[in-house]
């Protein structure tokens, strides 16, 4: 069975380490914050200038001056710091954020990612995504393995305009966890009940399948 959005987020959360500074993109990545293992702590970076995103505010706490990069009202966590956009992207571009999780339209076997534009259809801009993928050593892409018409999103070569080149190292989809290296997708884990054959069938790029592909495990 393919994972739902929360389950993808739960699996990504297993990649977190105690003391990590993490930037979570909009959509599934945002859900990762709900599944941080209880024995570790992470600090969330918001590229509009906040390190240490707290919970959503109560009605009393709502403050137009305190938003996240998705323009949602938030609070500041204990130990937070607030700074300019230039400082925020100095952090990001300089590789100081330990992990970036973001969505994508397509990823290819060379680690290229397309996530910001579908020409003639969706042209909203890249926001901070290009800086995030260029700056992070450690990027996890979350997305469904294939689109609604079963077209693979894990390609030999991205067809859409790129957000970044050779930067994606790890992908968590509704079907599998994969590593991207040496020009191929390497299958690491499969979703519970999902067959290697289904993953192979929905992966258009080069897929390396080891002898044993364990099922993902969830503590929650």
């Amino acid at each position, binding site marked *: 069975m393919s994972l739902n959005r929360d389950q993808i987020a739960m699996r990504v959360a297993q990649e977190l380490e105690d003391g990590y500074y993490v930037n979570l993109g909009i959509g599934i990545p945002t859900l990762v914050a709900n599944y941080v293992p209880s024995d570790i702590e992470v600090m969330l970076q918001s*590229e509009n200038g906040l390190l240490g995103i707290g919970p959503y505010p109560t009605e009393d706490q709502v403050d137009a001056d305190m938003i996240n990069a998705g*323009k949602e009202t938030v609070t500041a966590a204990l130990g937070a710091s607030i700074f*300019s956009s*230039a400082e925020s*992207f100095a952090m990001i571009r300089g590789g100081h954020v330990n992990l970036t999780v973001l969505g994508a339209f397509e990823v290819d076997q060379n680690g290229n990612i397309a996530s910001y534009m579908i020409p003639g259809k969706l042209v909203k801009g890249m926001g901070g995504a290009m800086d995030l993928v260029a700056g992070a050593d450690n990027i996890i892409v979350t997305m469904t393995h294939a689109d609604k018409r079963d077209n693979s999103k894990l390609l030999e070569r991205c067809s859409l305009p790129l957000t970044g080149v050779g930067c994606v190292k790890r992908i968590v989809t509704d079907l599998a966890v994969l590593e991207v290296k040496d020009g191929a997708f390497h299958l690491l884990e499969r979703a519970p009940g999902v067959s290697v054959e289904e993953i192979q069938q929905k992966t258009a790029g080069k897929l390396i399948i080891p002898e044993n592909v364990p099922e993902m495990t969830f503590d929650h």
Partner: protein
Amino acid sequence: MSGFNKVVSSYQEAMAGLSDDMTIIAGGFGLCGIPEGLITEIKRQGVKGLTIVSNNCGTDNFGLGMLLEDKQIKKMVSSYVGENAEFERQYLSGELEVDLTPQGTLAEKMRAGGAGIPAFYTATGYGTPVAEGKEVKQFNGRNYILEESVTGDFAIVKAWKADKIGNLVYRDTAMNFNPMAATAGKITVVEVEEIVEVGELDPNQIHTPGIYVNRIIKGSFEKRIEKITLAKN
């Protein structure tokens, strides 16, 4: 400090000298930390052919989005054009020129403009449409593209507090692009919530030193919120 008193009493005075085809650098992220009254004044003046450098272009009827209605903007330099149907329409129809710029590169272009750095290399955008026509150079085996800085005839900035000589303090994430915008205008105009006496701000805690600021006006802010998200009980 007469020569340093930068407080003006009307929006007209605050934006005096603005004319058609000028470039304006604007602070703000979405509707957060935007100089609401200065934008309204630009609309009132009706100048046309503006180039506006700002992360976003407000929403359909608030913030910089208001300047789209009367087609005052010729070109936007922005990282994100969502939340604004008229912006997308004018962009897709070709009425509005848009230079889509990665958010971090945009912030750095403003900072560099204010800091006398005409260009810098960044890995952001290498190999993407953003890199088209730009110089590429390798450092330590990695490819970077050359990005040029940006400055404006005017910068419009929103701060929380200013003293009368233009030292500024921002509040929470309403800081965002404002500090860089403040450095990048030939004339930098700041709209604030409160004007305090010189000496009231701690010299160690000033976000933008007064040297960058030319005019200050006290505004009253609506502070519209784009997405109110609340804690679940």
